[in-house]
């Protein structure tokens, strides 16, 4: 019994000295990675997704109602009066800049018939969270639509350490779907007009 107590005491005393040393080692070797990168140009994105480097484009003027809706999704004012999209048949492509933590992430979203076909990270400028560029994350968006409340109809799984980038991508996808819906309604109203 006495031997056991001695061993435990010795272990605890060793820990008293070892832990501060481990802490110093952790502090000394800790570092951060910075990976700002241009993954794809807008032209390449459009060529790959719509089959044309400069497909037809049109704009939406962000009227008050749409500005409010965009601000609600993004959590901050949209900040522009006009948003451009490119299209080929029923397929629309959107290039959206959204802040992750401090810097804008440029995302490309392709939508067909109200459903996201693909989402890509075109430019990433933050120092962390670049993992969102990988297909294991971006393919979660394929097939997503708007639900009745105007949000994405499925939850997006996060990535540890990339929470803010994941949120930025999710908000951008949501905004692109709302804007696409606006375009489809507008086109429908125009085609129905006498």
């Amino acid at each position, binding site marked *: 019994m006495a031997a056991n107590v001695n061993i435990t005491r010795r272990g*605890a005393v060793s820990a*008293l000295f070892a*832990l501060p040393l481990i802490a110093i080692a952790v*502090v000394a070797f800790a570092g951060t990675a910075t990976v700002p990168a241009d993954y794809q*140009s807008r032209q390449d994105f459009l060529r790959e997704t719509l089959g044309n480097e400069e497909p037809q484009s049109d*704009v939406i003027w962000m009227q008050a109602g749409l500005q409010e809706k965009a601000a609600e999704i993004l959590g901050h004012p949209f900040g*522009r*009066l006009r948003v*451009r999209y490119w299209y080929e048949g029923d397929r629309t492509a959107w290039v959206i800049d959204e802040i992750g933590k401090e810097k804008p992430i440029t995302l490309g979203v392709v939508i067909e018939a109200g459903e996201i076909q693909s989402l890509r990270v075109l430019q990433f*400028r933050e120092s962390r969270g670049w993992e969102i560029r990988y297909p294991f994350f971006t393919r979660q968006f394929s097939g997503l639509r708007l639900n009745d409340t105007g949000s994405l109809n499925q939850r997006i799984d996060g990535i540890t350490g990339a929470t803010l980038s994941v949120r930025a991508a999710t908000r951008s996808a949501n905004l692109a779907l709302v804007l696409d819906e606006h375009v489809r309604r507008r086109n429908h109203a125009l085609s129905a007009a006498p």
Partner: protein
Amino acid sequence: VLLIAASGLLLNNTDTFGLSARSAASPLFQKLYGMDPPSIQATYSANGLLFSAIDNTVYLEEQALLTETSDLRGAVATSDEIVIATRSEFAVLAPNGALVERIRSNPNTEVGRLGAAGNEVVADMGGELFVFDTVAMNLKKSDVREAQAVRWSTPIVPDADRQEAIQAAAMGRLLSWERILTDLHSGRLLPVAGRYIADITALCLIYLCITGLFLWFRRR
């Protein structure tokens, strides 16, 4: 210890308190960080508004207008809008300066100069002139010749007060409360001793935890 705990708590809630967007620029912090006012790379005027470039941001008066951009090349006003160009992108603004749209130019081309010929916006790209279409947001080869007197946008020097105000705004963007708290938390706010003080404090906390557990265990 209190300072580290409180700053840690605040840092864990930066989004809630909007600390990354809050400017902490003040003469005290400026001195502490040894920061000189950032230099204004170029200022252009259009429609009575000043557009200045500092680092990779273009300011409209004292407000950041375009972030993460490149060198400012010019600003011109047409009858119903303002166009500004950086080396790699164009931005169309309403006459009051509200941002209408911005678009990056082709990655293989660089804007050299920006000017106006009548009501047309002209960009000089590698010696070739292009007309910038503010609706389609694209460039078309121009028949405008230099001889037809393109009014090229030229840099101006704002008066000292305006310069100071623009630099103060830029400083505010560089120095946020999140930056201050991060450096306070890590001890880097004090040049040399700070980091050691923070490390010693952290080690003391670990030591207290361990010795506390040890004493508690021994009493049992």
